[in-house]
């Protein structure tokens, strides 16, 4: 690459919005759709993914000088699978009900493209500090994506947020939001919104985009 590698801080900020794993890179879709029917499972999944991503990045970064090119995918997979097993056992021991609700989606973190791609692109080439910042940034971005989708689905689908009622009891609850079609539709529409915001912002700058959105309230 002609330009310099991004610094740790740049990577951290990058992971949250500009290169958000779900909205910009379209990685890790499976858990995003599956666990976002309510905020609690979504945040538990975000925490588990963050744990695996950060630990895997740290370990791979520590080992980066020892990795052989054709065996590195094996090493990544082994590391990620180990941390996912640890996370799964911890969830089953300390939050059993939530672990049952998340079901097979916690082990599916192993094949979450986000983690393997961060190991490949960043952790295997950068120092520990940079890799950690990258992992934390991406985890926050992932959690943000999960939170937005889960908020929409839970509020419209059940009238609650984190289990607390935010809409009046008379709200009928759009059942479809809690079911699979609602997941697809919500993510599709939110992706469209994210894409529109990013294009407008690229074209006219962040401040102008915000002003334009504010002027539409009339």
């Amino acid at each position, binding site marked *: 690459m002609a330009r310099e590698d991004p610094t740790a801080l740049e990577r951290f900020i990058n992971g949250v919005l500009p290169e958000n794993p779900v909205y910009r890179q379209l990685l890790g879709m499976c858990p995003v759709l599956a666990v976002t029917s309510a905020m609690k499972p979504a945040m538990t999944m975000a925490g588990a993914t963050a744990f695996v991503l950060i630990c895997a990045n740290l370990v791979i970064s520590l080992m980066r000088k020892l990795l052989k090119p054709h065996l590195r995918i094996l090493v990544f997979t082994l590391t990620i699978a180990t941390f996912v097993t640890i996370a799964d056992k911890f969830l089953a021991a300390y939050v059993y009900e939530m672990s049952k609700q998340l079901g097979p989606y916690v082990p599916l973190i192993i*094949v979450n493209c986000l983690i393997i791609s961060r190991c490949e692109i960043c952790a295997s080439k950068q120092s520990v500090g940079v890799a950690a910042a990258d992992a934390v940034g991406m985890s926050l971005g992932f959690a943000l994506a999960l939170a937005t989708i889960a908020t929409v689905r839970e509020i419209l689908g059940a009238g609650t947020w984190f289990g607390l009622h935010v809409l009046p009891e008379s709200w009928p609850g759009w059942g479809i939001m809690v079911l*699979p079609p609602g997941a*697809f539709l919500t993510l599709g529409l939110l*992706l*469209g919104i994210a894409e529109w915001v990013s294009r407008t912002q690229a074209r006219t700058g962040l401040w102008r985009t915000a002003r334009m959105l504010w002027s539409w309230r009339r």
Partner: protein
Amino acid sequence: METLTSLILIFIGAALINNFVLHYFVGICPFLGVSRRVDTAFGMGCAVTFVISISALLNWTLTYFVLRPGAPLPVWVWQLAGGDPATQIDLSVLSYIVYIFVIASSVQFVEMYVRKFFPPLYRSFGVYLPLITTNCAILFGSLEVMKHLQDPTKLWGLHEALALAAGGGIGFTIAISLMAGIREELDLADVPAPLKGAGIALIVAGIMAMGFMGFTGVEKGVAGAISTLLR
């Protein structure tokens, strides 16, 4: 006949009623990425069905004999090494690692096989063949099989595991081919710019999921129909 009925129910359950893509949300990445043309989509679906069946077969064998709590082989090896035959050995903590290795190796073998015997198919797959390893649907198939090997009173046999895996793969193929057919038409439609690509594909998937929801509750009727047919 009860076995055959339950096998058919497991198969239809995995393929249509609880479709892996539209109900369990696994296999979304290739579902969005490879579904532009019907022939590539169908080819990908067949490859996924093949890999999911092979890996379910291997993983069932490993789980049944080695990895589940109360599996026979570890106890046998422990006894050979002179240990106390009454000790409980539970190797299930290694399950996920073993499964992902088996899947990665299966994909490698399929890749070598296709490259040797079907070179044009191999070229048309391009980069997506090795990416089947990270297809959630394959690991999910193995996880479902593992789920049914936990209770010692209700263990699934190899035939049931294969019915689930094949059903899941064929369900994936159906979903991805339908999506490819719709997207081919969508290319000619006037989609708003922000929704082009993944956005509209997900909205279409949502409508398809609604359609497949119509299969809920079909199991009872199918079970009745099969038992009438087979009598």
